[in-house]
Every structure is written in C-alpha cells, then in structure tokens.
C-alpha cells in the first residue's frame, strides 16, 4: 500500500451512470489485476474503494458507477484535479490457476477489474472468453474494449435488448473453460455458483472503513475462518466461500 496523489487526466461518461477516469501518478504499489484504490474526496470522511480497471507505469484507469454522493462528487472532478489515494490495496486475482482457457464473467460495474485481468491472461498466452451481463442495452460499456483485445466476448441483457436475453450465467453452459474469474452483484455470484463446473475466483464488494485491514468493517466468514474483504480479499476462491 502506498499513498499517492494522482492527477485526473480523463473523466468521461461511458453510459449515463458509468464513468471512466484515467489518472496519472505512481502505480508501483499496484501489482495484480483485481486490486483497488481507496480515494479521499473533499467533503467526505470515508475513502471510496474503487477497483482498478487497467494500469501501467504511471497511469491507472478506474471505472465507477454514480450510485451516491461520493461517486457523484467524483463525476465532477475535472482533468488536472488531484485525488489522494491509498494505492494497491487488496489481494487481486491469482492468474496462476487459470488453466489454458479461463472464463471471465462480469456483471455491470463489476466488469472493470476483469479488463486488466484479461490483458494479463493474454500476456501469459492463455485464451480467455469473456461474458458480460447488463440490465439493458443502454447500460453496456467495454464491449469494444474487450473485443479489441481479440477475445471472444458474449453479452447478456436481462431485458433482452442486446445479446442474449437473461442472466450472464445463462451463457455458461456450452462453453468449455478451464477455470473462471468473476466480479459483479451477489445474485449473479449465486447463479454462477449453481452452474459453474470448475474452480474459480470471486471478487467481492463491501462497505469499508479503512481498506487496509485495521477496522474489521468489511469482515466475512469463510470456510477457513474470518477474513477481511479489503486485505484478505476482495478476491476469494470458490472453495472458501460460504454461500
């Protein structure tokens, strides 16, 4: 973990509710896809944990959904503004377990961390398949970004306005995969748990106090004891999760 003052390079809407923010600054504490930043915003006490969508040396991209007053304040940050962040938090995804053809399953604003994961898997000569789930066509983002990586990307919408009608988990039967990685809402996780045929990793979300393991604000119970989502997670293996 490192405290970094990032500078906003880009802050733009991808959909009416989802924005993409590109930041410049020290990214040396971010070592794995699936880690997060904890952002201090003017006028708020608690930092906001936001997953890293992509990073390289000196540059990090986050996607966020405007759901409350904190994310509404983020939307207003103009290029050139600075943000105090605790950088490189959380365990991140473990790509060593992926096998040759992992499945990446994202739901809504859970999709962002899968982007860098996908790039890492490709860099390690794996052949990922990506499944993205949205409520409706007007909420879709990052379809083209994944497609540009050259991976097979399938979309499901709950209302059927784009791609396959139904839940993203409905796309899983019929696909051959060696392992899976997923991030998204809890009902989606439970549906995946029902149909998944391999081991996999789930990235969880929770309201956090500190984000670095001190306050026990985001604890959960697992098959291997109590864990903190912020430091022992947010990524947990299928075998340790109690549903």
């Amino acid at each position, binding site marked *: 973990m490192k405290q970094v003052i990032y500078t906003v390079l880009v802050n733009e809407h991808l959909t009416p509710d989802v924005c993409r923010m590109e930041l410049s600054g020290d990214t040396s504490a971010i070592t794995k896809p699936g880690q997060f930043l904890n952002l201090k915003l003017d006028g708020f*006490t*608690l930092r906001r944990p936001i997953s890293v969508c992509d990073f390289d040396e000196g540059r990090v991209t986050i996607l966020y959904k405007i759901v409350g007053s904190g994310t509404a304040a983020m939307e207003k940050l103009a290029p050139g503004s600075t943000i105090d962040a605790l950088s490189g938090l959380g365990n991140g995804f473990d790509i060593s377990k992926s096998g040759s053809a992992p499945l990446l399953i994202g739901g809504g604003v859970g999709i962002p961390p899968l982007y860098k994961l996908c790039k890492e898997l490709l860099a390690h000569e794996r052949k990922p398949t990506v499944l993205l789930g949205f409520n409706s066509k007007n909420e879709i983002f990052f379809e083209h970004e994944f497609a540009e990586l050259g991976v097979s990307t399938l979309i499901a919408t709950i209302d059927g306005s784009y791609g396959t009608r139904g839940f993203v988990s409905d796309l899983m039967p019929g696909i051959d995969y060696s392992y899976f990685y997923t991030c998204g809402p809890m009902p989606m996780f439970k549906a995946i748990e029902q149909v998944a045929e391999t081991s996999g990793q789930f990235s969880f979300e929770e309201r956090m106090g500190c984000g*670095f393991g001190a*306050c026990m604000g985001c*604890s959960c*119970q697992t098959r291997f004891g109590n864990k903190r989502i912020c430091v022992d997670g947010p990524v947990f293996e299928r075998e340790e999760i109690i549903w």
Partner: protein
Amino acid sequence: MVDTKVNLSGWELDNPIIPSSGTFGFGKEFAELYDINCLGSFSFKGTTRDPRFGNPTPRIAECHAGLINSVGLQNPGVEHVIAHELPELGTYFKKKVIANVSGFSIDEYAYTCEQLGKQDCVGLLEVNISCPNVRHGGMSFGTNPEAAAEVTSAVKQVTDKPVYIKLSPNVTDIVEIAKACEQAGADGISLINTMLGMRIDIKRRKPVIANRMGGYSGRGIFPIALRMVYQVYEAVSIPIIGMGGVSTTEDVIEMMLAGASAVQIGAANLIDPWICKKIIEKLPETMQKYGINSLKEIIGGAHNG
C-alpha cells in the same frame, strides 16, 4: 527542547499519542507502514473471553464529519490473543500496550482482565463498558453507575495493573458514572467511546447499517468529547485519557487543556494511516507556537483556579 512526556498511573509515555482500540488492530497493519515505536502506546483491538465474529455487514456508514461503525467487537478471543497476537506484537512494538477488554458479564470481564493483566507487555487495562454495538453487554454496564462500579471493583480484584474504565457518552450524566468508577477503585478513566447514531438509505428506505444503529466517531464528536473530558476532570482526581474526533496537534492540546493526561486517536487512523506519526512529529512545533514547554504542565489548564 520541549517535553512531550506524560504519565499514566506511574507509567511514563514518551508522548500522549495513543491510537484507540478498534482503529489499530494489534498494530501490525500500521507497523508495515511506519515504525510504530514512535507512539506513546496503543490500545489494541477490544478483546473478549470468547472469539466473536461481530455483527453482520454493512458495518460502516459515511456521515457528516465522521463515520458510523457497527463492528460488534470482532476479535479472536483472549486465549488466541495471548497465544498469537501478543507474541507477534512483541516483534514490532517494544513498548507496553493498553489491553482493551470487553465482556457480557462481570465474571467475563474479570476473567479476561485477569488473563491479560498477567502479560508483561500490558501497561494498563482499558475496560470497555461502552460498546454501543452489542446487546446485553458492553454499554449496558456503562450507562448505570452501580453496574460500572461493580465491573470496576471486580476487575481491580484480579489484577495489579492499572485499570482504566472506558466510558460511554450515551448517558444522561457521564460525571456520575466516572465518579462511581473512581470510588470503586478505578486508576483512570478513558472517554469517550462512540455516540450511538444511524443513517438511512433513502432509495431502499432502510438503515444503511445491518444492525440498524452504530457508533458515530470522527471530527463531528470532538466538541462533545472535549466537553465531557472537561466535566469529568472537575469531578475526579484520577487521570483521564481523552478521545473523540481528535485529528490534529491542536486537538491534542485542547484535550489536554480540558483535563486529559493522554490522548487517543481513532477514526483518523482509518482515513490517514500515518496520522499518529504526523501528529507526534508536529507536536513539538505546535507546543512552541503556543509557548508550551511541557505537556504535563498543561493538563487541565483550561479550568479556572
């Protein structure tokens, strides 16, 4: 050269800065960020006789000038703390620590305090009778002078270590509780714990916190904490550890002028994990600015006559 040393019941601390229980774990996460031996001491995670998972999540909510938590005393239990946490703590913290203890019965408080009181690394016991996040315990002992006195005398009988009682602000008259603890033999008073509060999610029309209510801490409670330290200082002659929303060197000095012999820092650690180190480093400069040579000399300095 200014003197930042303070004294708690015969235990001399290099400075009055103590991270408060529940915001600092057993120090490990912070020891990875800076050398925590710069601290006066720290109060470790509230420990109970038996292991506890605590309350369901969400346990945390943003609120004006602070946050609400409803962790519910999650801890691995006193046996595990003694067998694992304290030996590990000894590898990165060379000073004595404050053992924060909670319980659900008088016997349980006494048992846990007796076990922790035997540990060499424990400088004093801080008995939490003020946790707002558990039922049938915690705060119920801290909202009634007789019950507070009963816990105090039970704990005093089982340990030779100084016993400080951590009080709740969620009472009609905190001075009565403090006096009852002093009369029952308490060596000092810690105040304040968090204030019972809540937030409601307007879209869901439900409380944000799973346990509905929680403890409000952070900058917003500083004036309330300061006022209570000031009032208790006038009523008791034992040392006070002041806390509640402290996040700057000026806050520390205000707390000491109100009557605190040492000052704990809580919520601020969660937002800026280096805050205690920064305050300790800046304290001499702030002392000089206000013409303070020795912190000991300003304790209670805001009281007339």
